[in-house]
């Protein structure tokens, strides 16, 4: 039975009716047409569907849409502010941290969560944070490099902020 759902997605209030069994990723990719969030498996292993719920990285295939009731969801489409790319997006491009780009949105959302909670992660912490995100193309070499570059960029911009 369709049930009312109110949440905030990428800064916009959303009011919609969903079936109780609808997964968050199905809501995002379907009715909300936010197709940057991907589905790469059916066992919550690949992490391609990772989004932020109130700033925390969550696999949106493993959560019902109704569980996001009243919460704030950020998808890859909501990362960039204004015209510029988010420093994590910028770092993935600069470091060649993506090849096919399918895992990249989920990977970046995990990284945003990491750098929010640990602005200067060690390599071991980066690798640990990425355990739930699979990439088949890059061998993770340039992904880890991109995380390190993004951390430096965020630190520099925080330092230069008034």
């Amino acid at each position, binding site marked *: 039975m369709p049930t009312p759902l109110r949440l905030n997605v990428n800064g916009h209030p959303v009011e919609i009716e969903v079936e109780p069994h609808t997964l968050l990723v199905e809501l995002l990719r379907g009715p909300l047409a936010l197709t940057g*969030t991907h589905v790469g*498996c059916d066992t919550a292993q690949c992490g391609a569907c990772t989004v932020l719920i109130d700033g925390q990285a969550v696999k949106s295939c493993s959560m019902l849409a109704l569980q996001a009731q009243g919460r704030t969801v950020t998808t890859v*489409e909501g*990362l960039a502010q204004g015209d510029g790319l988010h420093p994590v997006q910028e770092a993935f491009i600069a470091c060649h941290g993506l090849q096919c*780009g399918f895992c990249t949105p989920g990977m*970046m959302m995990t990284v945003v969560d990491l750098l929010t909670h640990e602005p200067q992660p060690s390599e071991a912490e980066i690798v640990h944070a990425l355990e739930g995100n699979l990439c088949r193309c*890059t061998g*993770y*070499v340039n992904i880890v490099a991109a995380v390190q570059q993004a951390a430096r960029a965020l630190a520099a911009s925080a330092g230069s902020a008034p």
Partner: protein
Amino acid sequence: MSASLEAGRYGSGQTVRRIEDPALVAGRGQFTDDVVLPGQTWLAFHRSSMAHARIIAVDTSTAAAMPGVLAVFTGAELVAAGVKPIANAAPFRRGDGSPTATPPRRALAHEFVRHVGEPVAAVVADSLGAARAAADAVWVEYDELPAVADAVSATRPGAPALCPEAPDNIAAEMRHGDAAAAARAFASATHTVSLEIVNQRLAPVPLEPRCVLAAFDRSSGRLTVRLSSQMPTGVLNGLCDAIPELTRPQVRVVVGDVGGGFGMKTGIYPEDIVVAYAAQALARPVKWVAERVEEFTSAAHGRDVVSRAELALDADGRVLALRVRSLANTGAYATATGVAIQLLIGPWVSTSVYDIGVIDMHYTAVLTNTASTGAYRGAGRPEAIYITERLMDAAAREMKLDPAELRRRNLIQPEQMPYENAMGQTYDCGRFEQILDRGLALADWAGFAARREEAGRRGRLRGRGIATFLEWTGGNVFEERVTVSVTPGGFIEIFSATQAMGQGIATSYAQLAVGVFGVPIERIRIVQGDTDRVQGFGSAGSRSLFTGGSAVQVASERTVARARELAGEALEVAPADLEYAAARFTVAGTDLSIGLFELAAKQPEARIFIDSTSAVSGPSWPNGCHICEVEIDPATGAVEVVAYASVNDVGRVVSPSIVRGQLEGGAVQGIGQALCERMVYSADNAQAISASLLDYALPRADGFRAFRTEFDTRVPCTTNRLGVKGVGELGTIGATPAVVNAVVDALDSAGLGRDAERVQMPLTSECVWRALRRDFGPSPFA
């Protein structure tokens, strides 16, 4: 305008930001499942739960009556409608001279199922949920038959047969070389070594599952099929071959972003035919998107070859002969590519960078109750090179020689180029000793003893492995058509039938075009994946840059040449008097000039258009020296890669960061085969055991990343005008033997000696822990 049309540092050889990336990092990619058409319906498959059975009945009545269901299709209905099996065009033979034997691979199973996950029925509904629920409700009555999962068991007398044409389950076989000469060489050899070697079955696992969206337009009668594929034209041809009365001009295949291919998305799949057929039958858009379990059980797997391999050497360590007997598991349906990869393409590189004159190889393609094997990154070359490099190490161990020194004594020398190997393949160029020397220096080969000793003090077993090798690239399709359109709006559009799948080929092509046109990279638009624009072989076998890129280079130059003629007419001067730079023709010594885009606007069609077909003259032979060091924790058997140095002869380099990304990302896939990946079917009933990402071990971020990777660009390829060599598979091919040789070396150092060579991939901690306790499991031929 000229100031803004400086090419800048975006030409060939420069590290550039990929033109693919801004959309992908913003979530604006266009993967097939991102596209939704008005009136779209969803298709779901009912798949076989049995590995081998006769289909008694398929009851679709419950499914058809469920809410939202629009149609249910079965194999019997498709056969009645005239849908043909996928053509098996492999020109191979069985031992008795009869053609390749395989059961017919149908869009939907008919009369028999032959592997778990084979599609049996398809449901189309107005929602994905309804389609999947109804697919579950299809009821199939089976008469279960005995099943066989591995090639050795399948070739034993009394094994269950998959089709009457092959009571011995042998789809095809091929012998190469001179068996009598090899027998003489082995008889006269001072040293011989023999190994049993398993190249285990792998799942390619591009992160984007397959997806097909087909739409039939009644008014035009055209069928547009959008899917994730490396070979759009091959899919078009496959659809028209299978579906009655569907003609090639009727079909358009469109490919958007492809979330990884690795060979798995080459050619046509049964599911593609069903989706296209359903869209035509219902005259509505139909979409199927695979779940991961469907990918593990019905998409192509790679490798799965069991070999007995032998090397004969003289007293100085010169290889006298190579003898290989291999059983290659083709799965239930022997595909043309699956057979060719194992019977032909692998053997082409078996003698590798070594001057081995005598070979005796017998390759047998075997049918089993498993998913079909096909192309997976390297496709035959990783299997062959792994065998050869394991043998070289075994020979060095037997002779108590440095494995690098043994390799050096056998390398083909530059003055032997062009070199025809024992399979009749001609290497155009290569300086293998130069690559070996640089590899040894980069890896500090001489300093290994100290590192081993230091590791020993930490209680670790340290091993070192080397692979010197080459590979063949090209797919042996060397001609490529490219069209170029210079528009008045200031863009140069380049259409190619090669296919982007994450390798960054659009960026590399754009760099080449920048070099010819002298315009900023933003002015170049690379368009791929539309059979209405250009048709061709597609992207496989690391052919895109050296074949497709060369064609882009030629087409771009032809465009400038044509524009020069047009500029001469416009300015009323001889074309030879015109100088071209930065999208402008200038009459030499004057300020009289016309811009390229301005010129395009003046044309009757308001564009300058070139339809260009060109060809390279042969394959490319990239090669390398990969050296790996590992450490084993003897308490757990866990293997850690601790150093990896590689020197790669890749010819000229267009995009350095892309080449490095291909080599290192590819190497991680090769490490995956060495240490963790294995597609497992149960021996007794051929159930797929590792059919999820929970069960199939992919490399994760905590694996090895500290690669030291060098390119050697001093030996440009001579078969293409760019001088480039294919790089998509080189890293994968080198990594597997380098890692395994290092593990075997570490086990040898623990006192196992040549027994260490009995380990088989993947070298999991369990495997290595057991090996340290002299438990190697049964022979693969047992």
